[in-house]
């Protein structure tokens, strides 16, 4: 009962974090903060995925079949490995994205000495005139 409530509570928190992340990416003007908020959002989604594979039973088995437990017991108690595999892929992709975006933020800093999106708009607006 308490476990189910906890899962519900965690789910709500994670969804709030996803929306917070999108809000942060849209409203923060510092490019580095935008990247951080992107990570907040990505990690919240990854946690949600992990939660999908979770089992509300005790004890929970790792998804590796061992001879001394019966197969039915294994199916009932083992964690779903698929979400973990998906999250592993997404984490690696997220790291690559981080590096790429940070590179651009650094490069913009080298060119104009600022990582502020408002300055960026001003500079680019001047060049587009």
């Amino acid at each position, binding site marked *: 009962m308490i476990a189910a409530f906890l899962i519900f509570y965690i789910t709500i928190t994670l969804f709030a974090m996803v929306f917070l992340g999108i809000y942060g990416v849209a409203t923060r003007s510092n490019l580095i903060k935008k990247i951080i908020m992107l990570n907040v959002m990505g990690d919240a989604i990854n946690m949600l995925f992990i939660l*999908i594979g979770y089992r509300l039973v005790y004890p929970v088995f790792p998804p590796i079949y061992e001879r001394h437990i019966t197969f039915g017991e294994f199916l009932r108690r083992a964690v779903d490995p698929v979400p973990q595999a998906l999250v592993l892929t*997404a984490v690696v992709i997220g790291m690559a994205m981080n590096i790429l975006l940070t590179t651009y933020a650094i490069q*913009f800093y080298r060119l104009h000495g600022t990582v502020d999106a408002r300055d960026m708009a001003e500079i*680019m607006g001047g*060049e587009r005139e």
Partner: protein
Amino acid sequence: MEVGLVPVVPLGFAFFLPFTAFFTRKNRKVVIAYALTALTAAFLSALWLFAKAYSSSEPLVYAFGNWIAPIGIVFEVDRFSANIVLTTAFGFLLAGLYSAVFIRSHGLEFFYTFLLGLEAGAFGAFMTGDAFNLFVMLEVLGASAYAIVGFYRNRSDAVEGAFKYGISGAVATSLYFLALGFIYASLGTVNMADLSAKFHGIGFPVTVKVFGDPSLALAIFFALTISTVIVKSAIFPGHYWLPDAYQGAPIPVGAVLSGFVEVVGIYALSRFLYTVFQGYLPEALSLTFFTLGVSTAFLGSVMMLVQKNVKRIIAYSTILHMGYLFMTLGVGSQLALLAINFHIVNHALAKGLLFFTVGAFIYRTGESSLDGLAGVGRGMPLTTALFAVAVLSLVGVPPLNVFFSKMLIYNALLQVSPWLASVVIITSAIAAWAYFRLFITLWRGRPVEGHGHHAGQHEGSPATGDPGLFTGINLLLALLVIGIGLLAPTVIDLYFHPAAVQAMDYRAYIDAVRKLALGVFH
């Protein structure tokens, strides 16, 4: 050769290109020869795939590591995918050839690495039969695209465009990942054939039962997927990054981004709506497609009128055409899918021609602003004529190819409402005026004194001479634009109608995988 190897060809070549460049001391000729070999190999494998998909009566299936779905990841290629893959390979080959002359700065090996990565991502996204694999391919495509848009890293517009594109794209693909979470939690699988089987109530080996209410999960899935596609395919509220990204990107990159990278989102949605969850098109969803598509089309065409940079005009033209495709998605009939497929191919060819002719002007003057390009067409009459062909085709003048796909889109929309269909005509007329202005500027305009003192605007120093390669590529594309236009009824009957029929046949789509799965698990 196996079906699954087609995206591996450009990916494998891309992986070894930086090493090859390093060991040959960044020899320009070696890099170009290597990259063109890779692109030709990719084109030949796409041609092979096309022939195989059209000669086979059912979709081709390739299971990675022989792990058949729903356990493993599969590629499932039908004719709809195959003809887009072939166009993609052709477009990338031409863009690679073009870049060999056009890109004169250092770092050509990285440029080609990203171009090959982009091609691999596009191939994968068009060929995959697994919804999660589609996410991975979107990211492969996205990472290469963000990197190649910022290729001129010392120009602030390139860096700004790449950052905007990168952060918007990363948020959008994360939302698609979240959408997969809902689908997986409810339907217990991410394989497209298995999803389709569950949705249509067909049995599938080794899979779990549906959990909870799948219609709610599907609604959330489509809501999140559409928000991804809105950004990835530059539909109205999510289009803001595209003009900046195109302005920063080198011209050959613009051609492939516009023709193939933007349509990946549209392709994914049409795959989900017309094959996997065929029959799932609630009124609200259709209305979303129509509203956003119409807004995008009007926004794209009106914004074309006020731009001062030729790259931005083309960028808004891309937004306009993505609006047409997005609108058509909401119709839900076989005619709509046929129109989408034919328009994707036609738009890619005509837009490639437009980009490559404008690239020849930019190569000559080193400028992309309208003031800098004024009057340049007089010195290059053949290129200007080919530019006119591209423009007339994109506006939709009869014997050229885009006219026929626009007509199909018009017919498809007419099934819903004549008002909706009239949007295609009105926005085409507005776009025609913008193109006409551009043409007059290029052909009759007077060069403006004192332009181009902003360091950021330069495309590179002006080059002398009119490279024969550009003219050759443009002639080839113009020939295709005119040829497909003249032979449109035959081409549709031979290639696009069978593709639409096969893509709408969800039973065959499921059975191609199900048969193999039953063979293994029984």
